[in-house]
């Protein structure tokens, strides 16, 4: 395959502007993904990670102002007319959500929903589409797939529904799969099954995955690269190894040290003081500065330097830019 990115995002900005609110939800987000690659956007609630995904999918409400550039397979898709966008959704790019019960249609069977997508996008007849649906259910390892094809969403367990939604998303072999916290609502034993399934399907289908989560553990299991988002901005990105082993940004460091893992019994957790900022009233400069223990004057100035290491790892931090502080 060529080395060209299947998805490239440059300076994506999303702003929600209504009568008395003005919320810059995503600021200057840039990233690109190659075939078969997984990028995790890691962040806490309100950090803008889901909004970024929805902007890619064209799912934001009309009052959202979206600027920047998004290329999918070399074609610019931001600003495409609704009909062209609808053709892409479920075709070249598709999405899975945290709540399959909310994402699936309760009055159609799983089979009908998957077949519908295939008919819409590829214009094949229903019987062929239904047969493809059966294959897909088998590929996502739903036991007794032929019977499940005729099930309604409420007749399935949570893990099964999540598999069905993945089958639906993969129906037209998308080049990019957007996954918005798909394992958050699941039990651990089911979560790991879904993560392994996604990894395996990625090998078979070769799609690129943008995986959004707040869970460092899930990120470590699935991603090639991780981008950490805070207050609507990427503060650090790198390979998952770089981010988990040697985080550079104080926020990433704090997030990792406050994530409880085995063998921490009896120690006090190192926490990040305070709470995430209100996006409508962001401080100038680094948004993390009010909670950061290394804050200096330079952090409050508007242009925070971005450091890009040889490996391509990025950090947006005054301290990283000037190692004198360390």
């Amino acid at each position, binding site marked *: 395959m060529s080395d060209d990115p299947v998805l490239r995002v440059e300076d994506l900005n999303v702003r929600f502007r209504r009568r008395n609110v003005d919320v810059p939800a995503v600021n200057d987000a840039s990233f690109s993904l190659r075939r078969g690659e997984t990028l995790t956007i890691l962040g*806490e*609630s309100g950090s803008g990670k889901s909004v970024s995904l929805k902007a890619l999918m064209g799912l934001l409400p009309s009052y959202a102002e979206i600027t920047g550039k998004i290329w999918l397979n070399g074609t610019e898709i931001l600003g495409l007319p609704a009909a062209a966008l609808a053709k892409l959704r479920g075709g070249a790019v598709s999405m899975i959500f945290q709540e399959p019960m909310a994402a699936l249609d309760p009055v159609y069977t799983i089979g009908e929903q998957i077949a519908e997508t295939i008919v819409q996008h590829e214009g094949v007849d229903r019987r062929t589409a239904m047969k493809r649906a059966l294959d897909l259910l088998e590929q996502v390892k739903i*036991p007794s797939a032929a019977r499940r094809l005729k099930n309604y969403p409420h007749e399935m*367990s*949570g*893990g*099964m529904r999540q598999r069905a939604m993945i089958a639906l998303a993969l129906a037209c072999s998308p080049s990019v799969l957007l996954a918005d916290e798909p394992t958050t609502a699941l*039990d*651990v*034993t*089911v*979560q*790991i*099954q879904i*993560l*392994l399934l996604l990894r395996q399907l990625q090998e078979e289908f070769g799609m690129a995955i943008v995986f959004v989560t*707040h*869970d*460092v*553990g*899930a990120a*470590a*299991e699935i*991603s090639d690269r991780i981008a950490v988002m805070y207050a609507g901005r990427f503060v650090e990105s790198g*390979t*998952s*190894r770089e981010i*988990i082993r040697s985080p550079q940004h104080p926020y990433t460091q*704090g*997030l990792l040290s*406050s*994530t*409880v*893992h*085995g*063998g*921490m*019994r009896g120690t*006090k*957790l*190192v*926490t*990040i*003081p305070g*709470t*995430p900022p209100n996006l409508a009233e962001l401080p100038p400069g680094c948004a993390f500065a009010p909670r950061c223990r290394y804050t200096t004057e330079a952090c409050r100035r508007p242009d925070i330097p971005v450091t890009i290491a040889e490996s391509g790892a990025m950090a947006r931090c005054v301290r990283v830019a000037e190692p004198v502080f360390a």
Partner: protein
Amino acid sequence: MSETLELDPRDRGGPAQPMLRVDGLKKYFPIRGGLLNRTVATVQAVDDVSFLVHKGETLGIVGESGCGKSTTARLLMRLMDPDSGSVVFDGDAVGDLRGITVNEMRRQMQMVFQDSYSSLNPRMTMAESIAYAPRMHGLGRKEAYDRAESLLAQVGLNPRQYARRYPHELSGGQRQRVNIARALALEPRLVILDEAVAALDKSVEAQVLNLLGDLKEKFNLTYLFISHDLNVVEYMSDRVMVMYLGRVVETGPVEQIYRHPRHPYTRALFASKPTLDPDRRTTEMPLTGDPPNPINPPSGCRFRTRCAFAEAVCAEKAPALAAPLHGDYDESSPHLVACHLPAAQRAMGAHHV
């Protein structure tokens, strides 16, 4: 720990008497349907659950959704009535003529829920919410509000800033701090934390966990810590109880359970934990499928349908909680496992975290 316990005037049976003794707790929910609205099935939410909580310890309860951990908590608080079983609080049977009433029990046992917003009255200020229970239990208005303010300070919220605020004016983490303060308002001895940090962001979760640790020491508390998060339970608990489909499958000291789990389910559960190491990713599914439907649980051992070791005996009768078939047995803090098969229990030893 024992020194302060002996000084606590509320302590009745001495440090050796368990704070809570639960015996044969059972709750079945009927499912009605059909033409005459008859009971067509039952959900065996909690089925014959027995355990002890010692004074000053934290007992963690882990398990997947539907395993009965939250129902157990609600039964203990008498937010619903058990079908059978007894709860003895520091030697006094709850709801028994010779014991203590449910009200008296609730003065000593309080609960913090997962949803910080729905557990607060949206029309009460923080101070009102916290002062409510003490006032109901007979404390004067002034004293109750003084206590509310001091508790707000104890949980890290400046009373001047937060006492008059309403729930919607606070963040999730702040609201959960208020819920903790409210739970402490009656000076309870046992606090049940039912997924109390599950809805919080990681950075806030860590703050609240630290707070819980500090408060436990300061107020001489005993915790029942319920969570689906295995790492958080390991961090918080002295002893752990693992539940599966309404039954206890394994219980013991936290190191024993986490380092040498004996039950095939416990091992699979821990193996499902993300590794947090990009170089040692999980490669095999520890378990397949979802937990079975609690409406028609499998006969005998409820885990047998997902267990790699299952034999005929597992379908015939339910295994009782007993000492592992090999290994050390410590009288004071026993490791108990509900599994028929020595081979399945021995295989556990191979798992290291």
